[in-house]
Each structure stands twice: as C-alpha cells, then as structure tokens.
C-alpha cells in the first residue's frame, strides 16, 4: 500500500498542489454523518488525489435517508476518475444504486430494464412491456417503490451520458427530474466527457448540479502511478521510473489508463541493467540512458497501437534478434486489378483537378488557354489543402477512357469495380439521394497511394506526364507545399 512518507518525490507533489487544495486536504476529515468512519477513511485512501471531489460528493449526497439533489452532472476528461470515484463510493458505502453504461443501451428499454432490475430485482424488470415507453417505466417504478419505499437514497449512475442525446429526446429531461416524477428518494448521476452546454435540449429542462473533475497534474500522476510498484523493487526506484516515463509521454498523453499500461509494458526493460548487474538502483542516470530511446520507440509504436502489446513484450524478450517489427501502417500497399488502378487514378484526377482544366489535360487538340488567367482566383489555393471534390460518374468515366491506353468496352464489370472500390472505402459516394441518375463520388486516397499505384501501371508515358502536369500546375500555385514537390521529383525519378 502506498504510504506518503516513503516516497521521495512526495514533497514536490505537495509543493505543486495549490494552497487552497492543500488547506482543504488537511481539513478534510471526511466526517459524514450516517456513514461508518472506517469505510470513509479507507475510501479516501483508495482514491488518492481525489479527496476534494470525494468530500464534495459526500456532502452533496447528505445522509443516506435524506433526500438528495435530483440530478448531478459530472464531467471531466477521460480517465480522471469520474466513474471510479462514484462507483467506489456506492460500493464501499453499500448504497442502493444502478450503474448503466449508455453505450450498451441501444434502446431506452434496455436502460429501464437495467435500472428496475438493479433496484427491485429481475422480476420487476420482467413486468416491462415489450417496447417500454418512459411512462411505462415511471408507472412501474412508482408501483414498485410504493411496495418498497426507499429507506436510503437510490442512485442511478449513467456512464457515457452523451449517448443519451441520441436516444429518445424526452428521456434526458425526464431523467433529470425523475425524483419528482416517481416521488421517491432517487438521484440520477450523469457522467460524461463533454460539458453540459452540449446537452441542454432546445425545450429547456431541469438544470442538474454541475460538477467538474479536473485533469490530474503531473505530480498527481506520479503519485498515482507509483502506487502499483513492483514487489521485488523498492518504491523509490519505481517512482523514479515513473518520472522518466512521464518525462517522455506527458507531452503527448495524460490519460492515466494509457500511461499505466505503458508503465507496465516497459518496466521489465527498465530493470534489465539491474538484473544483469550492470547498474545499481541508485544509478538513475545510467538507467535513464538505457530506457529513454526505448520509450521513444514505444511512443511511436505501441502507443499508437501500430504494434500490439503482446508483440511488444515478445520483442523485448528476444531483443537479441533485433527483429524490426512490421508495424501496421507499413503494409500500405494494396494489390488491385488493372482497371481498378486506372479507375482510382482517374478518380483522383477528377477529384483534385478543376473540371475546367479537363479539356486541356485530356484532349489532344485543346484550345489555347492564356497562361495568365488560366486559373481563377479561388482556384489558386492548392486543391490538396482543400481536400477532394465530388465529381459525377460521367466525368470519371471520361477521364478513365482517356487515361487507359487501350480501348475498353463499358462492361458491367468495369462499373461493378467502381462500386467495389466504394465498399473498400477507396472511393466514397457523395449524396445518397439520386443513385440511379447521377451518382457522385469522391476519391478518398492520398497522393502517395496514387503515386504508388501509378508507378505499377505506368507503362504509358502519357499518363505520367499527365499526373506530373497536373501536379506542376498545382505546385506553381502553392510553392510551399512540400509534399507536392517531392511528388514531382518522384515522378521525374521514374
């Protein structure tokens, strides 16, 4: 168990904490009448750095038999301990509660079902009709609570409450004043990652009590992470390890859960010199030198889930082979049938070139266009910055026929390739209203991908010229855009 005196970094932690917090910390004795003091103390110990929130919540809840505020809205970023704090209070103090994750509730009926079965047992929930409405729920709740009135405040905890906005529009306002509706001592606690302003319905509703869980500071993270130190090493060593880890990861990630995951994954590597006897525990600098590049690598691979954690651990085990793990994004190459490649290239050209320039690029005897006002003003921003534009099927086919060097019959399989490119998410269909008449598409692959493809198929020089030409024109406009220049130089290399 964590004991504050044994940690070397503890003073630092206290220094960082704001004075007001400090005073509160000292003064918090967590004396809430009606709850056993032992449990409260152990609760406070189990929730480090969340003492103030704990105290406030307990104060809000009041004594078990007292009526509480009808609805509380708790918000804060991921992994700031919202549900952990609330659920530990509920469990440790043995309060009647129903905890529901809104992600699971694909219909409101599921939510009602879970709440009723948590409070009154599964038999009560079975009384719900097939597609229960809100009034069914309220009726049933009333009926049940009249049989067994609440001796303690009942709590309904709704995790990921932002999902409720997608459900029935009357559900959220009704739940916010459920206490009134059912005449029972019940409190609804909503947990969410977004602020209340995004929830408020147009018609207005009962305003819940807002309560913010702030992010953990760096010192707090160190304190919490140092909790699960390895039994065979001293807590000091683990704390210094955590400090090093945070030094690398704190700038990109403050998610406690993720940091914890990373800490466990890389600790064995950190201890390697110790086990080999190359360094002592006090030799922090040496240990740091050993682990730092490793952590940097972890940031690029495991953290982004390019490499799975199991693979990462395996790699650590057989380090000697120095196997370079093939990361997920390394296999970007896709084998496509011949015409699909051309279709994709045509789609790319149609998406990123203005339609006015088609005549110039794809006709052999195009009219002379004066160079000065060839591009209109609004076209002078690079199309690559603006993203792909939708184009009709006819234009795609026209470009396709002019790009493919041989004569292609408009067979059914060419058209079916377009739809299979859509299912593969290489093209995307825009606007679903008019499928029969004039479907529109967008190209959703990157320039690099197209270049790789055209490198495979480009036996004909004309197409290469075409790509290069369209790119040069665009790059004339925005000279700063580096990727275009590399692209053009790539084309020259070919």
């Amino acid at each position, binding site marked *: 168990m964590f004991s504050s005196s044994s940690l070397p970094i503890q003073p630092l932690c206290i220094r960082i904490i704001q004075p007001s917090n400090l005073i509160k910390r000292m003064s918090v004795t967590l004396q809430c009448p009606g709850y056993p003091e032992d449990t409260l103390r152990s609760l406070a110990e189990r929730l480090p750095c969340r003492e103030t929130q704990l105290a406030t919540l307990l104060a809000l809840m009041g004594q078990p038999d007292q009526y509480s505020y009808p609805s509380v809205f708790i918000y804060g970023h991921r992994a700031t301990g919202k549900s952990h704090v609330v659920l530990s209070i509920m469990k440790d103090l043995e309060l009647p509660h129903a905890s529901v994750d809104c*992600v699971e509730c694909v219909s409101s009926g599921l939510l009602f079902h879970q709440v009723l079965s948590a409070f009154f047992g599964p038999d009560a929930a079975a009384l719900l009709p097939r597609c229960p409405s809100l009034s069914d729920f309220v009726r049933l709740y009333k009926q049940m609570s009249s049989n067994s009135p609440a001796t303690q405040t009942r709590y309904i905890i709704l995790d990921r409450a932002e999902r409720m906005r997608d459900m029935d529009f009357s559900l959220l306002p009704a739940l916010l004043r459920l206490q009134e509706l059912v005449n029972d001592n019940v409190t609804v606690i909503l947990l969410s990652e977004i602020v209340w302003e995004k929830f408020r319905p147009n018609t207005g509703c009962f305003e819940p009590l807002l309560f913010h869980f702030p992010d953990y500071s760096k010192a707090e993270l160190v304190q919490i992470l140092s909790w699960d130190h390895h039994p065979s090493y001293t807590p000091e060593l683990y704390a210094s390890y955590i400090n090093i880890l945070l030094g690398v990861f704190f700038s990109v990630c403050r998610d406690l859960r993720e940091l914890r995951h990373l800490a466990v994954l890389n600790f064995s590597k950190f201890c390697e010199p110790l086990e080999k006897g190359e360094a002592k525990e006090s030799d922090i600098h040496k240990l740091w030198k050993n682990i730092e590049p490793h952590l940097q690598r972890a940031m690029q691979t495991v953290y982004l889930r390019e490499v799975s954690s199991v693979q990462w651990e395996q790699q650590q085990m057989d380090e000697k082979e120095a196997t370079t793990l093939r990361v*997920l994004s390394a296999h970007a190459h896709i084998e496509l049938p011949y015409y699909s490649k051309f279709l994709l290239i045509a789609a790319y050209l149609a998406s990123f070139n203005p339609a006015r320039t088609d005549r110039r690029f794809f006709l052999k005897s195009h009219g002379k266009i004066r160079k000065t006002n060839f591009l209109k003003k609004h076209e002078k921003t690079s199309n690559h910055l603006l993203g792909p534009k939708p184009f009709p099927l006819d234009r795609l086919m026209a470009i396709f026929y002019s790009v493919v060097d041989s004569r292609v019959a408009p067979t059914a399989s060419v058209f079916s390739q377009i739809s299979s490119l859509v299912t593969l998410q290489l093209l995307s269909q825009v606007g679903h209203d008019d499928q029969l008449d004039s479907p529109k598409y967008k190209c959703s692959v990157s320039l690099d991908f197209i270049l790789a493809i055209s490198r495979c198929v480009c036996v004909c020089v004309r197409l290469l010229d075409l790509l290069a030409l369209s790119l040069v024109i665009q790059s004339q406009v925005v000279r700063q855009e580096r990727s275009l220049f590399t692209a053009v130089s790539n084309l020259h290399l070919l």
Partner: protein
Amino acid sequence: MSEIPLTSSVSKGCFVFKSASKKRKRHVGVGGYLVDDSDENGSDRFRICQKLWETVQTNTEVIQDQLNKKVLDSLAEFIKKHGLGCSSDNWRQRAREIPTAALMLGVNVPDHAMTFRSLCNLLQDSVTPFVVSVHAKECAAVKLLIQKVLEQLMGRGVSVDEEQEDDTALLQRTQCTISALCQWYKTVTKKSTQVFPQRTESLTNSDFPQSLPVVVIFKDFEAFNSQVLQDFILICSRYTQELPFIFIFGIATSPSAIQHRLPHSVSSLLCIEVFHSLSCTQHLASVFDKLILNSQFPFKLSSRVIQVLVGIFLYHDFSVQNFVKGLQFSMLEHFKSQPLSMLCCQKQEALLSAKTLSKKNVERIRHLPSFMRYVETQEPQEQVRLLTNDEHVKEVCQKLLKNLHKYHKNYYPILQCLHSLTSSLPKFPLGKHIRELHVSCIEKNLWETEEYDSALQLLRILAKDELVAALRKCAEILKSTKILQNVLQQLEDFIGRLEALEGVSSEDSSGNGIISGKMEYQKTDLFQLQKTLLEKESRRTKRMNPFEVLRSQVIEFIDSLVREYLTPAELQPLNEVCYYSSSGVLRQRLNVTPRTSIQAALSHPFYYLQNESLKTDAGTISSAAPDLCIVYKLHLECGRLINLYDWLEAFLTVMSAAEDQDTNSEECGKYDSLKHARFIQAVSEMEFLGFIKSTKQKTDHVARLTWGGC
C-alpha cells in the same frame, strides 16, 4: 387444390391462386437441355460434363485448403494462445484488451467466403465451439449486430440440449444484450465441463482452467459502419473478464484500414496482430497448374479462351472463384454445342465410345477442319476410304485419339521444362508465368516467334553452373512424370558431360554473361554495343572451347524437343473434341456490356426483334419501330435539356409520316390523344431506363443523362 376455392366475399378483394401447373414441374433435369432431337448422346455428354465438373470442384477445394492451411493454422494457434492467456493475465489494462487478428485477404472479395467457411470449420473442430461470423450487410446498427451474435451463439448452444430451447424462444429483443450472453456463457461452460470432462481435458494440455474463447469474425471489415464497430468494441471490452472475446477482422485492403476506421480510444482496446493470406495470383497459378496444365484433365481451352479468362481475372476482379466459374461455363458451352464432345473423356472411355460412333457423328468427324486437314495429307486411296468407309473412320479415329492423348502427355512435361529454363532469363522473353508460355505454344509454332529466338540466344550464353542447375530442374520434372524416359536419359547424359568438363571455360562464359548484362541496362548506345557484341560473337565461334561446343549441343537438343513436342494444338487432328475455342461467346457472356446492348436494342430494333419490317438504313427513323426507339432516336439529336413540346412535335411528325399516304392531311396536324399517350409512355420508359430525368431548371424540359449533351 383440385376444386375451385371460394371467391365469393362480402367485400372487394384480391385472390391469389397458386397455379396447379407449378406442381408439375419439369422433371427433365439439367441434362435434358443437352438432349436434342437431332442427337442421341446428349445424356452421355451431360454425364461426362458433370463428372468433370465434380473433379474441378474437388480439385479447387483441395487447392484452396492447401494454400490456406498455413495462415489458418497460425490463426488457430493465435486463438488458442489467447484463450489460454486471458485467464493467467492478472493486471487490469491488459485484460481489457481484446485480442484481434487482422486477416489480410486481398481485394478478391468473392473468394473470401470459402476461406471463412474453412476457418469456421477449423476453429469449431479444434479450438472452440463458439464461433460467430457476421456480415456488414446484416449489421447496420449495434442492436442488429448484437442480435446476430446472440442468435448464432445461443442457437447453436441450445441444440446440445432441449431444455434451454424454450428460454431462447422467449428471449425478447430487450434482453438482446451482451450481459445476457454472459449469463448464457456461464451456464453453458459449466455444463460442458460437467458433461464433457474428457473433452475439455483433451483441449487443455496445461494447468490453466481453460475458458473457451468466443470468436467473432467480421467478414468484411471495410464495409462495416465505423460507429457500429466502435460501439460494439466498447461494449465487448466491458465484459472481457467474464467473456473471453477474440475478434477476427477480414480486411481486403491494408491493415491501416483499422486505424482509419477506429479512433485511438477504441483501437487502444484491441491487441492487433496481422495475418497474411496467400495472394490471389499465386492461387490462380496453382489452379491453373492443376486444371489446365494437366494431361489427366481431358477438357482443354484454346489460347483465345484462356486469354479471355485470364484477362477477366487480371483486369477486372482478381477472383479465382470467378475464374473457375468461367471454366465451368466454357465446359457447359462446349458439351452443349459440340456433339463430338462425348469423346472428351479419359482415354479408355473415349476409345470405347469411338468404336460405337453413330453414323451422324462419323459424318460430323468428317467435317471437322482438323480431320479434313488430316485426310488431305493421306494417300489418295486412303482418302477415298476415309470418306466412304464408316468403319475405317472409326478405327482411324481411335488411332487419332490415342495420338491426341499421347500428345498431351508429352506436351506438359516439356512445357514445364522449357518454362523452368526460360523463367530465370532476364526480362522473361517467354513470359514470367507458365500460362503465358502455354498460350503462345498452343496458339502458333513457338519456334517461329522472335521471343523464342531471343530466349535461345540468352540460353546460349548461360554460364556452366547456371546451365547445369537449369538442366537438373528439367531432369527432376521429367523424373516425376515417368514418361519420356529417353529424353530424360539424354538430359542426364548431358549433365554428366557438362560436369565432367573441369572449369575450362568458366571465365569466358562469365565474361560473356557480364557483357550481356550490360546490354540489358545501357540503353544509350545499344546499337554500337550490339555491333561489337556481334563481332565478338563471330570471332568467338571460330575458336569454341569444349564447353561451348557442348552448350550449343544442349541448346540444339532443347530446340529439337520444343519442335517435336510443343506443336500447336490446332494442328492435332480431332483437337476440336477436347478444345473449347469460341472465345467470342465467352466474352459476350462473361464480360457483359448492358449499356451497349440497350443502345443497340434502341437504335437497331431489328437486331433483337428480327422483324423484317424494322430493317432500316443508318440515318433514318422509321415509323414502324417501337415508340421507345423513335423517342430514343429523336432525343439523340437534342442537347442537354430537351423541350418536351418540341419532342412531341417531332414524334408526331415521324408517326404521321407513315400515315400520310393513306389518310388525308387534315388529321395529322391534330393531336391524337392516343398518340399523345403513346408519347408520354415512351418518355416515361426512357426515364425508367435512365436516359433522361426531370429537371427543376425548366418545368417543360427534361435533362439528358447520357453522353453528348453539350
């Protein structure tokens, strides 16, 4: 339904009668289509065809199984490992990660079904009974996805004992949650450990209390709605402690698709490992080897047909399944259209049926072009006998069939030898794949082509060790087939003699090789280089060392083999019996062009209707044509927007042009409401076919949707 059911009713109503005639379905079967009045052995041909198709099917399945074995086994291993691992893992975050296999399958989506079927079977047999596979089409929402998973899992589990069947019947949709699945899983695993203790023991060789994983296979990952996937993963990750989930994503494009579809917060819940299946081109190559480059398989494809089939594969879909379908189609077409295809079977059977050829079929044989060519080469006396004596024809036919089989038997090993010799040459003058070589061999005399010459040139400058290695390979191929023993002997003799030469000329030949290499890469002064090379060559021939003498002997030997055995199939008498050659039909059927046929039907109605009165000249519009055709032709002359009134006027003019002669001109100016209606109907048909649509720009106009309006 012998008596007429009552249709008297108080209210108005529609009554549906199932026609009794439907029950009397045709009992002819598929074979009936081949039976014609004119020929008597249709059923025989159907039988042969079906037998061949069965061998094709079993062969393709075997090939698929062999090719997928490796990746499927490693997948099963992965799942076993994680099924064990999750109980031993004790720290929280790791346990919340769902092990996920990303199975890269390539873009040939039609082939995936077979792979998934065998994967399911394998997993159910060897790892876990709880395997679910879901398709994106059925899972538009999370609710449906969960329902699908539950249905498949619990439905299967229930079939073990009847007691629970009632429960699932009562299973309401509201209870369609993963927690319900959890409950079910607990009871089932408890039961299964009680009922089949020996089975679980056999599954677990370790000390861990094995929990059977629940495998969910997402067949087409890309097609799934990403929100649905995210929600499902979030929900499942809440239950990982109780329910050991394992996901398999079937991915057609690339693994980065996962990152594109799922945000970090979700993908951090997965522990992804990538598995690659074999590429479809390799798959095709093995199917090709087994079915087409095989003398055991009597049905053959001509070069054009192969080109069509391979073209569809490479240019359009990459699907081996479709290739096999194409093969099946050409088989059916061959056996249907060629009455002599009854001889297209194994040797003994073919000889037997050749003995009992009917008079009609003998006549047919006489009309085969290849047979006629054969007849022309014979002596005049023999010619007369062949044309008059049926029995003699039958005898000759047997002999020719024997020859044909022998030709095939020799052809394939030599083809493989030649391929192994030339496939390592720079720039692949005879093609990278054996199918290209095969196509050019059966199409024309290979030794007359330029590519063959250049390949021989390159072979003539091979170094000794390369040559020996290549010859060794050839010898292996011949050894495995156990025919052409004399050729094999000669080859081994050559190898022995080559090896006996002790490093005399290795320097020369290697120097030569380098120059040839240069020739490949330096493109600037190729002409000069060639010149100098030629000079060198001519000088060299004057003082050839023993190795070079031997080498040229070897090459000549190979050349003679090619000339003897790799003759084009078309020159073989009776090749029409085995070879299916109408590539045009195949292309028309497999690579359809709906748009062109609609346009052909509309602009040349005679083409499909075959009505003499519809024959017209190119430019004119005949009034005899169907209304739709007239309207279509008129609309071709318009721009992007078509004025309906003008169109109607033009339509009426065309219509009245025919009537002008016999009726007086009074009526033609008036609007006949019948004609008006016909016009409106034709226009709405045009809209239905997708040529025009109504536009909001001008109310009395319609917009053209096809080319040309500009």
